[in-house]
């Protein structure tokens, strides 16, 4: 079982690396920024690989769940306040000494108008971003449940088309409902830590990268942990059996409806949570994040990393995010100058096709598998020899 020690060692080593690296990289906010975005994509790609690779549900609506998470927390921050006095105009819910004020979505800002009714010294709180993120994850899960139930009967191309349709409807609605979502301008969100972070004698400004890095890293490790645990537990076994053959799985006692819906709910929640954190970090979320192009990026990351491997997809996403970022410059071969701003996506599309065609299980996953299955293969060979001998 030496390989399992290796795996544990590498996992812990990798985690430590990710935790400690920013201490060295603090002075490089650009690298930190890419790292945060890379984790964001890694969460999306690995949760998509759980949905598509493990459970076989090729959904193109993953970014829609992400956006639902982001917009939920954004709207929560935009329209909900906690005050120490009632406005008497807005919809408000008394909570002990406080009032939860829900501003009217259409029409005037009732909180501004309501200030006239509030005594001097009234405090108005924006609710913390973390509440919004949890709300976002829950909304993502709710929509995941809805979509999961609706797509139960649909397979392959039908499922892909339905989820594209869902994603487009969400995008168009976010674009068109300007009064609520601020439309194409994008919804602005407060930073994760509006007052900065003060811990152990260190202070970080709201714009510093270190706190959001750790928040995103935590979410990444947490979701990887949850998904890994799920994938090796009965859940993983069942969703893979559903992927392989729904009817056979059902005939063997697997509650296919429950697990199919569940996998949608879980992956949607993870995507939504990632979207919510990312939106707070960037400070703005626009409906353009739902363009099919963005979804194809996530799909390509998962495919190139390894569709049937959470870790492969995550590493694939991180490498591709860094690569795409660093490829944004032109290079010259001899007399030909290649402008990578346009060509990088051409090569990227080509890489996606070629990976699919010739390396079905991705480029990263086989490397991981060689380590994890090395001992197993030896064991099998030994047994087979024994059986033949």
């Amino acid at each position, binding site marked *: 079982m030496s390989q399992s020690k290796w795996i544990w060692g590498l996992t812990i080593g990798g985690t430590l690396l990710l935790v400690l690296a920013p201490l060295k990289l603090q002075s490089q906010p650009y690298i930190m920024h890419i790292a945060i975005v890379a984790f964001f994509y890694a969460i999306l790609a690995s949760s998509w690989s759980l949905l598509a690779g493990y459970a076989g549900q090729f959904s193109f609506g993953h970014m829609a769940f992400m956006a639902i998470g982001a917009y939920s927390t954004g709207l929560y921050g935009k329209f909900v306040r906690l005050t120490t006095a009632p406005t008497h105009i807005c919809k408000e819910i008394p909570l002990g000494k406080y009032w939860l004020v829900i501003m009217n979505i259409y029409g005037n800002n009732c909180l501004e108008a309501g200030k006239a009714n509030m005594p001097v010294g009234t405090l108005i709180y924006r609710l913390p971003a973390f509440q919004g993120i949890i709300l976002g994850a829950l909304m993502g899960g709710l929509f995941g449940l809805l979509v999961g139930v609706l797509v139960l009967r649909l397979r392959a191309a039908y499922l892909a088309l339905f989820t594209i349709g869902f994603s487009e409807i969400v995008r168009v609605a976010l674009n068109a409902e300007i009064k609520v979502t601020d439309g194409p301008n994008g919804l602005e969100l407060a930073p994760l830590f509006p007052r900065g972070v003060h811990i152990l004698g260190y202070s970080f400004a709201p714009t510093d990268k270190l706190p959001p890095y750790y928040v995103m890293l935590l979410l990444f490790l947490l979701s990887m942990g949850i998904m890994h645990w799920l994938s090796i537990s*009965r859940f993983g*076994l*069942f969703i*893979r*059996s559903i*992927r*392989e*053959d729904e*009817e*056979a*799985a*059902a*005939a*063997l*006692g*697997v*509650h*296919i*409806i429950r697990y199919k819906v569940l996998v949608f709910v879980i992956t949607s929640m993870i995507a939504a949570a990632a979207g919510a954190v990312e939106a707070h970090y960037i400070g703005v979320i626009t409906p353009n994040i739902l363009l099919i192009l963005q979804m194809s990026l996530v799909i390509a990351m998962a495919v190139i990393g390894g569709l*049937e491997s959470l870790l492969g997809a995550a590493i694939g996403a991180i490498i591709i995010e860094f690569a795409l970022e660093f490829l944004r410059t032109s290079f010259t071969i001899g007399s030909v100058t290649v402008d990578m701003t346009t060509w990088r996506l051409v090569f990227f599309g080509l890489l996606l096709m070629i990976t699919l065609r010739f390396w079905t299980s991705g480029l990263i996953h086989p490397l991981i598998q060689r380590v994890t299955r090395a001992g*197993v*293969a030896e*064991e*099998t060979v030994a*047994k*087979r020899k*024994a*059986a033949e001998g």
Partner: protein
Amino acid sequence: MIELDVNNISKNFGGLQALNSVTFQIRGPELVGLIGPNGAGKTTLTNILDGAIKPSRGTVYLNSRRIDTLPPYQVARCGLGRTFQVTRAFRRMTVLENLMVPALAMHPTARQRDFRDKAMTVLEFLTIEHLANDYGRSLSGGQQKLLELGRLLMLDPDIIILDEPFAGVHPKLMEIIYEYITTVNAQGKAFIIISHDMDTIFTLSQRLLVLNFGELIADGAPDVVRHDPAVIEAYLGEEEPPEAMEETYLGKTEGDSKDA
């Protein structure tokens, strides 16, 4: 005591009457053969027993519990397991994982390692223990059939329905399957076996059900059924004696769709 009660099952597909008022019972660990010409309704019947499709009329009770209204996974948990005409191993899961699916599905709080020993015993019994960590897709067709039988042992049902267990199987594997059926039957499980391999089915089963055009035309011991005029009529209708069916049919089963 195993009790299966199939009462007046009928099934229409659009205008087509696939099954017409089929009734039979199974009491105890019987070994029942189900035969009939192509399109007689055998697969429809198994699909109804398994819960994959709902009958138009009629009821099915297993151990006094009505199962025709239940979805397949609940039917499986009630104690009815089946294989499919075309083998349906989970191709990109290891053999061991294949076996774990029904084991865990039956035991909601159990964990994989609780069943490892049992799974290895089952694989040994089926002589494929050396393939435990191989992927399903790397197995030969016959080995995949064995794998399906292994999964049924892990499911541990009262009644096992085997759909064409002998079709396209190497003679050596056929022996293993044969032994599997008799051994497991001796351990107290009832079997319903669908087969076109007349020789085998006639020697193997204790009782034969014969379907023709959706009707149950005979139900009895093999020797009785062999000489039943209705059965001879049904097979002679195709101008071929029962024994000769095997070769002409076997060639076709591979490409046959599961809903045939």
